[in-house]
């Protein structure tokens, strides 16, 4: 009744090709963004920023990056944790060398370095596919984390092998460390994530995105119609790694502030991001956000309900939380194997027909 497109006539190509062709969708997204930028910062406290929204945004960005590679181009990667580490260590070294450099430039440079590393480890994708490629990227995971732990130069020869962020100002506003206000950290991260998400949406709708999808759906057929696998696959690795690198830099500098390589970037991190896109929806920009919301926020919600609301013992709640998360993941994957993004799409279609479904 409220959600239908009848009467919304498009008279130009740009209008027809808009990201959100349906007016209700457009207004909804604008409304969400307006709330995220203009309302939430005023109600933000340390807990909501540092424990809830920052990890959500950072993981959404990492999920977006992996989705470009796995969801759109069909190349399975288990090296996400290591690529995030490359971004994090790159940003650490850049801030160390050039403390005056604008942090946006640091983020971009970290992304570029990660893109180069990603392309190098993406080279085997030209020969091997599927699970075998996953194993090849696993090599990146173990090698890079080992290297960051072993070579003192990366962590400035710190006694414990940890890297700690320096205080960074962005146009006079502190955005890292404990002195940064929650709103500053949140708004900075949100802006970066929104800009990158918008670009991702446009890349995957355009020529490059279509090349990736052609490779994903059938690489031999794609080759026959004139798509160069070398360029398509490596560009997917580059763009994906760029996103993951930026996510890693934000993860280190803005969200955590201090990391040690083995714990922060181990193989579990790679699986974590992979679960985000599998549950959120492969090949969907929205899916990365929904998946991150599910994987990052639901455990916190469950914990708060059990410990705060129902008075569970915290250890008990910890065990029940693991159990419930497992059950919820299985539940959602049975209900909709294509992820939460697909569920959202089905809901929209139902809404279109509502209240006369027949």
């Amino acid at each position, binding site marked *: 009744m409220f959600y239908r497109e009848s009467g919304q006539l498009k008279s130009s190509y740009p209008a027809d090709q808009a990201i959100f062709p349906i007016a209700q969708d457009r207004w909804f997204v604008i409304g969400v963004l307006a709330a995220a930028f203009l309302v939430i910062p005023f109600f933000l406290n340390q807990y909501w920023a540092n424990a809830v929204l920052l990890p959500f945004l950072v993981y959404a960005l990492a999920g977006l990056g992996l989705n470009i590679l796995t969801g759109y181009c069909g190349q399975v990667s288990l090296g996400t944790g290591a690529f995030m580490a490359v971004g994090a260590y790159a940003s650490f070294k850049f801030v160390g060398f050039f403390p005056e450099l604008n942090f946006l430039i640091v983020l971009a440079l970290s992304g570029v370095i990660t893109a180069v590393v990603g392309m190098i480890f993406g080279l085997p994708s030209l020969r091997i596919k599927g699970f075998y490629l996953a194993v090849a990227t696993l090599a990146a995971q173990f090698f890079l984390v080992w290297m960051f732990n072993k070579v003192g130069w990366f962590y400035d020869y710190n006694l414990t092998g940890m890297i700690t962020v320096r205080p960074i100002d962005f146009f006079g506003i502190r955005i890292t460390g404990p002195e940064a206000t929650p709103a500053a950290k949140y708004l900075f991260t949100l802006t970066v994530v929104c800009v990158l998400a918008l670009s991702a949406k446009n890349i995957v709708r355009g020529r490059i995105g279509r090349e990736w999808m052609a490779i994903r759906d059938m690489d031999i057929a794609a080759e026959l119609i004139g798509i160069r696998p070398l360029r398509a696959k490596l560009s997917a690795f580059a763009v994906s790694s760029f996103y993951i690198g930026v996510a890693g830099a934000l993860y280190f500098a803005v969200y955590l502030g201090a990391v040690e390589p083995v714990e922060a970037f*181990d193989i579990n991190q790679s699986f974590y991001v992979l679960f985000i896109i599998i549950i959120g929806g492969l090949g969907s920009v929205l899916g990365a956000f929904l998946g991150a919301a599910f994987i990052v926020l639901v455990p916190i919600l469950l914990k708060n309900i059990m410990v705060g609301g129902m008075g569970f013992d915290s250890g008990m709640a910890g065990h029940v939380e693991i159990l419930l998360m497992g059950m919820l993941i299985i539940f959602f994957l049975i209900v909709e194997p294509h992820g939460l993004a697909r569920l959202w799409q089905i809901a929209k279609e139902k809404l279109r027909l509502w209240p006369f479904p027949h």
Partner: protein
Amino acid sequence: MNLRKLTGVAVAAVLALPMFASGANAYELVIPTLDYRTGPYAPNGIPVANGFTDYLNMLNERDGGINGVKIKHVDCETGYNTKKGVECYEKVKNTPPSGALAIQPLSTGITYQLIPKAAVDEVPIFSMGYGRTSAANGKVFPWVFNFPATYWSQATALVQYIADQEGGFDGLKGKKIYLVYHNSAYGKEPIRTLEAMAEKFGYEFRGLPVDHPGQEQKATWLQIRKEKPDWVLMWGWGVMNQVAIKEAASIRYPMDHFIGVWWSGSENDVMPAGEAADGYLSGAFHAPGGGFPVHDDIRKHVYDKGLGKGDRDRIGEVLYNRGMVGAMWTTEAIRKAMEIHGTTEVIGKHVRDGFEALDVDEVRLEELGLGGFTYPVKITCENHEGPGKVAVQQWDAKAKQWNIVSKFYEPLRDVTGPLIEADSAAYAAENNVTPRDC
């Protein structure tokens, strides 16, 4: 898929959220702990958490809290995971009515996260014998306390013990001392000191890392079997300890030449290896066993009322006592803060002053029912490490108990002092901290 049901669940969940915000009327002293009762570190995390909680409950039940003000203990499950630790910290730090009075991260990784936050949030960190060693320098780290001894002091104590067995420091020349360590900030902490002493005393040092969670150590112990070091030190935690002791037993490494850090010397660590673990050594800064008057009070006031966190017969295990002594020093600091500031309604800022003026001497220990349990601790503005003394305890597998077998070694301050100075100066430079005058 029934969307209506799903919405119903979601709405119920959101409605349940504000329930945890209910407040209390009377003033209470909030002492949070970051525990881990899940994951690969749970075998060690559980007894520490139990000891800590039971002591606080005992004070509440026996004395009605500290100077008549009830203690509100808030725990939060971290699973020894840094990200969850950050979430927990943000959650507990503003707990009404007093806000967190002191935080015990119980993880070196989480401690590193929290050190810069402490000064801003005005919550003192009490990382008892772990965390950043150079935080012993109170001039640079006014909000962090790591008494009674740091990892570096402990490393020097263990080397002194080895020297005693080898007939003095000259006996160390040419000996091989290996370190099996958890490959994290925690495990790497002693390396610098051990290297510095290797130069000084002429032993050969080598570090063998074991990756999280520490279940896979075959290669490490194969190397030890091949290269036959004279002594093996271990900085392990959680499952890693049990596995290491079992592996050492399986290559027949002499247990009385294998010394763990004080986090690698509890009943949980040696029991799985059975008889083979007999003679295994570890560092200690307090006595094992449950025969002190304070334990009787815990049994009487907590367990008899059914308020105990753990099993009654596990009172007095090494890590249980560790948690308990941590709670003791924390509450003594709060008591001191009340005395200094002349109020019972203390906040984090006051408790920091309390920690800095902490003086738990033998008389006070006796009063607390802990006579002879540990050594006196006196904290000053510049020295947040306190005395830094460490003894060595040995496992008796037949009697199933730990016994302290050495004196309490004074740390070699000529080794650790310059290292602490250099590391804290580096921190100060990186974070624009101006060291305060003491």
